């Protein structure tokens, strides 16, 4: 993220469909977003929309292959 834009950017992200969770974090990254989609095509839609938001400098996508959760 570019400093100064995060609040507005988060509000825009909250409107995007298929986003399940938005976490603001400290460390190398600024925001972690969890997305659930039916096809990779739809994933592209989401990443596209995120990258279109002003203030987003860089995104990296990790596709979940397997998960264990409580």
């Amino acid at each position, binding site marked *: 993220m570019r400093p100064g834009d995060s609040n507005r950017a988060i509000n825009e992200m909250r409107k995007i469909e298929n986003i399940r969770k938005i976490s603001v974090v400290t460390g190398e990254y600024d925001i972690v977003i969890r997305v659930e989609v039916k096809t990779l095509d739809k994933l592209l839609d989401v990443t596209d929309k995120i990258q279109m938001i002003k203030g987003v400098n860089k995104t990296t996508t990790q596709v*979940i292959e397997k998960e264990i959760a409580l």
Partner: protein
Amino acid sequence: MKIRKKYLFYALAFTSSIIAALLSGIDVILENYLKNPWVLGLSIFYFGVLMSFIFSLILSIPYKGKSLGARTIDPTFSRIRLLRKEELKYHLLAGAGNAILTVGYFALLIIIKDPSVVLPFSQLVILYLITIESVTEKNTPTLVEVQSSIIVTFGAILGSISLSGTISLEALAIVFLIINPGWVLLSINQRKLKMMKVDKKPNDAINIRLWNVTFACLFTAIFALTFDYYNGTNNFINAIYASINQFGWLILVGIGTFFSFVFYIRALGIGKASVTQAVKSSVIIFTIPVSIALAYFGFIDPITADPILILIKVMGIILMILGIVSFALTLIKAYIFIKMKPGYPIEETMQKLWGIHGVNRVTAVAGEYDFIIKVRTRTLVKGYERILQKIESIEGIKEYKWQSVLKEWEDI
């Protein structure tokens, strides 16, 4: 719509307790007519099953591609469904817990009558939960957890001081040996059910409640029949008559309990069982106006206006709120992004990560990193000692990044 996860959790838990407080008032009114815990418990469960079934059916109606239930109460709900084999064990245990809890609760209500006294004592269940979580959920309680649960407990004891009567030993025995263990059984198994995946989707609160009440009814009926058989009483039949005679009140209880539980289970899916229980213990605050109303209409003995008693009760409630707040505000969450060296088995590392205390999600991903894990801890020291040091000691890990969560939104 996305709202802060924290608010959603509180909204759910508080709504559940307000409904529960109102219900306790209706329970007292019913108790005035039916003076037997078996008859009360059974007739309420008969209606509970009926009402839950009707509501689950209504909520299953699809509207613009999604069911009404998914739109309003729980987004993971699709429609009413049959029990899965893997759920059965937990449902049997949760149902038995609910049956024990309910009959115990009515036995207590018949002795004490005033709901603002009965309910605080049931809140002591938090101590049982903390202990059990420490044993089963790979989580040792921190100082904050121990402190907060002690504060909540003392608050509950002070808050339970009756404004009209006293507490009896018999009542205490029912609380500690019957009601609270029943709650623990119910609460833990319900959480397990909520955490389960059914047809690769998270389990939904509505079906869990429907099946829980069905099993609870079954167990109560079995217990009541056994009791009838050995004592020559006729509770099972009397409960059927009672459900016909007290139709109106029972329908209200059926509807109220269904929603109170659905909200509670949904909250359980978000927070830890002990924290959810802490928030839900706010029910004792809401029972005070209910008790005052009941006394006003003559269902329970009039409230004495002894200022010292009132002061102690208020102190108890303040303590409870303090305990609840410190419980909720001291949780630290973080994501840890992990890169592996080549040549180490993913599956094995995943299990090792999963075995670390405080890790509640392990995700194997494709991309720049190999794993993203989510951890929860009460203090950063604990996060370092119990989580990071363990991760460093796992063979094959090349690099990791700790990202503390500052704020979080979730889809509801």
